[in-house]
């Protein structure tokens, strides 16, 4: 999943993005409201972590502009202002959740997972497709009740494919949701990781779950040609 962190306090922005990357998220950083708007409007983020007190354009304005344009990203406000009126105005402007500073990083992760689940209409922490199970909290994967060991990037790719299960996902979408600006933009990196996943998920199983749709992209699900 790809997350945009809009935070002007550099030490906090750096540590949050580092922690999120280590959890398998693709993370982009914006240091002010103007940059945050630009990133959010030009990329398809699964979630945005948004500070309210930002230089140039304040966070509430960023939030309202994004929602006015129908941006579907789950938005979590992260701010030092924790008055009831601050929370109400943030949530009413279209935020999905609100975390006050200082916060426990574990809590930030849990809330982020929750708003991303809601964004893809999943109620459960466990995502299932046929006999494939993904525990989004423990970040573990099982196929036919057997554990599958994945790297962070492989997990991120699989989680996105499962979130969009039974839908054709283009390479560009995978690129947008799984890789951040710091990733190597070579053209076949998506195909390489899809290959890794196939070996770990489908190789020993008669029913294949990852399918290639020529000229379109990939689809995860029980194949119904």
């Amino acid at each position: 999943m790809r997350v945009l962190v809009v935070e002007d306090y550099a030490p906090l922005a750096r540590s949050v993005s580092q922690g999120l990357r280590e959890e398998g998220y693709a993370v982009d950083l914006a240091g002010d409201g103007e940059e945050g708007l630009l990133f959010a409007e030009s990329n398809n983020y699964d979630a945005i972590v948004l500070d309210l007190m930002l230089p140039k354009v304040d966070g509430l304005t960023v939030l309202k502009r994004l929602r006015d344009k129908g941006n579907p990203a789950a938005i979590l406000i992260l701010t030092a202002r924790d008055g009831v009126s601050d929370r109400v105005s943030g949530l009413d402007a279209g935020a999905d959740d609100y975390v006050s500073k200082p916060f426990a990083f574990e809590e930030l992760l849990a809330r982020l997972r929750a708003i991303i689940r809601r964004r893809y209409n999943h109620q459960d922490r466990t995502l299932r497709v046929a006999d494939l199970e993904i525990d989004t909290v423990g970040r573990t994967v099982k196929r036919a009740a057997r554990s599958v060991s994945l790297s962070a990037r492989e997990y991120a790719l699989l989680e996105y494919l499962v979130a969009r299960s039974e839908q054709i996902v283009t390479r560009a979408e995978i690129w947008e949701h799984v890789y951040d600006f710091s990733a190597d933009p070579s053209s076949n990196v998506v195909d390489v990781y899809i290959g890794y996943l196939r070996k770990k998920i489908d190789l020993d199983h008669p029913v294949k779950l990852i399918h290639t749709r020529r000229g379109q992209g990939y689809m995860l699900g029980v194949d119904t040609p």
Partner: protein
Amino acid sequence: MRFRLTAAVLGVLSVSMVAFSTFVYWATRHDLWQGFDAWLYRESQSLSHVVEEHANSRFVFEYQGIAAFEDRRRPAYFQFWKPDGTVMARSRWVVGGDLPRKSGDFGNPTYFWSTLPDGRRGRFMQVAFLPRGPTQSINIPPPNRQPTTIVVARGSEDVDESLGQLRLRLAGLGFLVVLGAGAAAAFMVGRELQPAVALASKIGGIDVQHLGERITVDRLPTELEPPVAKLNELLGRLDESFARERRFTSDVSHELRTPLAGLRAILEVTAARLRAPAAYQGAIDEAHVIVLQMQAMVENLLMLARLDGKQIEVLHEEVALFALVNDCWKLHAPKATERGLTFENQIPGAAIVETDRDKLRLILGNLLANAVAYTAPGGRVVVSGGAGNGVLLDVCDSGPPIPEPMMARIFERFFRAEAARSDAAAHCGIGLALVKGLCEVLALDVSAANLPDGSVRFRLAMVDADRKRAKPATPQPASRAAA
């Protein structure tokens, strides 16, 4: 107060009633007895006319009967004595002895109390007179004649009874009047004190959470209007003070939360997994920087609190201005270099100012930090002054200018040009407030101005030139420090 006022009104009323009743009683008593005595006198005069003295001390008594003296039940009495002391005549019911008699002067009636023949208490009047003769006037005693004496007496029970009834009525009336007046006084005092009671209740209901309320009381007496107005003014000042305190606490809390959040995130993310030593070192260094920033902020806040509490001691010493500016700049040079800023210290090397070195260092440090944070990358920061012309020093940067609407507020606590942190705790909006507070302590006037060339100048001017005694420097080439 209500009880005391009611008691006071009752006391005054009771004393007035007693005085009034006493006056009425004694006046009535006096009139009654005066009338009684007048009756005795009139009767004695009437009786004296029924006696005639003839030659040879022969007296003729021609009494025909007067109703008052003939009444069987409660008669009046009289008795005549001849000049020789023998009884001439007496009324019908004088039995068992003579009426009492006193010594007295001719023509002057004497009144006295004694017991009547029937045992009742009675009032007596005695007068000596000369009975009229066939040709003589009654009141002109010839030298050879002796006066005759008459005593007239009457029971005083009617007057006594009247006076008794009067006493009873006055006492009853007084009691009723005092009782009624007491109730009326209690009611009126209560009614008049109602605004004061309501005022006390309203004052009692105001606590820290309701300082925005103002005291309004219906039917407030004119006398209470000035204190209530003053009380409302006091509430206004308290409200403002508490609001400022709350805003300050909220701002401090907010400004400390962001670096705390950064610190916590760094520690938690770093501790989440095993890392290479260099990664731990990087995290520690970053956390250390944040701690130093927070420390600077807390120290600034403490200094502000001391300024508020007027707990600042000002030392006076000779300070070499040029060296102090260079010294302060060292702390900001790395950041300035990072932002591509150049620095120039134009203070004359020999400029000496008598002031508090540490406080001036804080002022300079904050002004330079402000210039480094807000000057556009690639700009210039210049410190000048020390020339003894009333300007201690100027800190100029190449801009951008401070927006004019914000110029008036930049020295307010926690005010920033935009609602964001720039370098977090180091510029949380208290630096310039602290500069202003410290300048007041050092008798300096700090001002900010956008100059026509687009640069921004912060000027420290001396309010009291004698006190600061900036010594003009002798002309010599100025050393320069550049970042």
